[in-house]
């Protein structure tokens, strides 16, 4: 049925969006786990500035973020020079470029729930594990991570959903190239620009439905978690 309703370009945009969101979520969990752990447990004086820096994408207009990333990845930017010297070419207007942008853009959505979870369980369970003979790394894997599981789930879902919904950064870095960097949100913009309201409606409704289902599911999970507690 979707073949009838959605044209191939829309389908390609949906596929790319899902790929981007999945890849972003994976990379983000790898980056955000140690970062959130450090923010939750470190007593370094760098903690506060780093915390502010991580939160920055939450308040910055996506165009500002996209602009700086574009400059960074461009032929004269430090990252652009590096990738060129390695023979990888430029990252702007590529999937990898989009991925980097999405990771930065959704960073606070992954870090904050994890940090909250780590802070909520506190230092005590790790001290207990260490007095029982576990090294700090073993204690982290067998105690801190399982205790932070609700935060881990929230971080993954929010990263995924937020990446699906991004627009400004993707437009700045990716340039809305069909099949390569055109995602659902930018495709909607394209449809509207072309006065093709029918297809815009369809994709917009899809995104709306998806976002609702995700948030609804998250709060259901949250409710079940609280209900188990005495």
């Amino acid at each position: 049925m979707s073949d009838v309703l959605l044209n191939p370009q829309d389908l390609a945009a949906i596929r790319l969006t899902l790929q981007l969101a999945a890849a972003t979520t994976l990379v983000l969990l790898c980056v955000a786990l140690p970062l959130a752990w450090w923010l939750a447990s470190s007593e370094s004086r760098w903690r506060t500035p780093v915390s502010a820096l991580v939160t920055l994408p939450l308040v910055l207009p996506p165009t500002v973020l996209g602009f700086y990333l574009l400059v960074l990845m461009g032929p004269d930017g430090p990252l652009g020079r590096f990738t060129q010297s390695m023979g990888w070419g430029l990252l702007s207007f590529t999937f990898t470029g989009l991925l980097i942008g999405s990771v930065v853009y959704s960073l606070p959505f992954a870090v904050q729930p994890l940090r909250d979870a780590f802070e909520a369980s506190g230092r005590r369970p790790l001290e207990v594990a260490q007095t029982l003979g576990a090294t700090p790394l073993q204690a982290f894997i067998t105690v801190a991570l399982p205790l932070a599981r609700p935060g881990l789930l929230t971080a993954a879902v929010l990263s995924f959903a937020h990446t699906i919904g991004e627009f400004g950064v993707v437009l700045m870095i990716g340039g809305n190239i069909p099949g390569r960097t055109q995602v659902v949100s930018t495709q909607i913009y394209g449809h509207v620009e072309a006065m093709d309201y029918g297809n815009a409606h369809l994709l917009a409704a899809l995104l709306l439905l998806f976002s609702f289902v995700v948030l609804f599911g998250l709060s259901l999970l949250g409710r079940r978690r609280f209900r188990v507690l005495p």
Partner: protein
Amino acid sequence: MNGMTIKGDSRLAAAHALAPPVLRAEPPADLELALSMVRPDFRLDVELRLPAASISVLFGTSGSGKTTLLRAIAGLEPEARGRVVVAGVVWQDDPAGVRRPVWQRGVGYVFQEASLFEHLDVRGNIEYGSRWRKGGGADAGAEAGRRGFEALVEILGIGGLMGRRVDTLSGGERQRVAIARALAARPALLLLDEPLAALDFARRDEIMGWLEALRDHTGTPMLYVTHSLEELARLADLAVVMQAGRVTATGAPEAALRAAGLAALADRLVRLRHA
């Protein structure tokens, strides 16, 4: 108390399985401490040598440094300097550059709140204790480990709780599981930091009974922190009185209190014993 004497024999047998063979072969373990630590608002300065009394009670008002000393012994206070020797094994000797990290000290630690791992059931919590440190001696294989585990469960009376989620346990049950978990790691020294503070009167009495059973049936020396005269009276083989970060007296409970200039407390202790 009758129930305890009747069950005494099986507990004793169980306890023998529990005590690591290496510990039993050695002369009684003793504890040698010389620790100091300076904080802006507090100074800890302790020199102490304790015989292998089964239960030594660190007694003092809150803020006297009992908990800090216990944490320093376990290696949980990085700023604490000095020397810690337990049963002839040097855990820390800063002048000589020796400092075992927490996880390489053979310590068991029972915190004020049971601090059970909420993601594991009772069995999982106790097994976590025997997961990382392998055996007490070369002969201590899986079989010895299993017997030790069963003995522990028996002594602390937690056999019926094994499959339970820890958030369904009562305060007294939680603390018993925490004690079993600490002992499952076969510590050379068990540290208990006001383990009864969060419990009501009846639970306290009950746990003290379990601790006495442990004292009688395992060889593990205990260092027990409290500010409760009642616990001092009932549990202490040896009292260590702490005031303002220093040890002011050591000895039999009543004598130690008098030596520390706490005659009124000593009188109350005597009355408690006769009550």
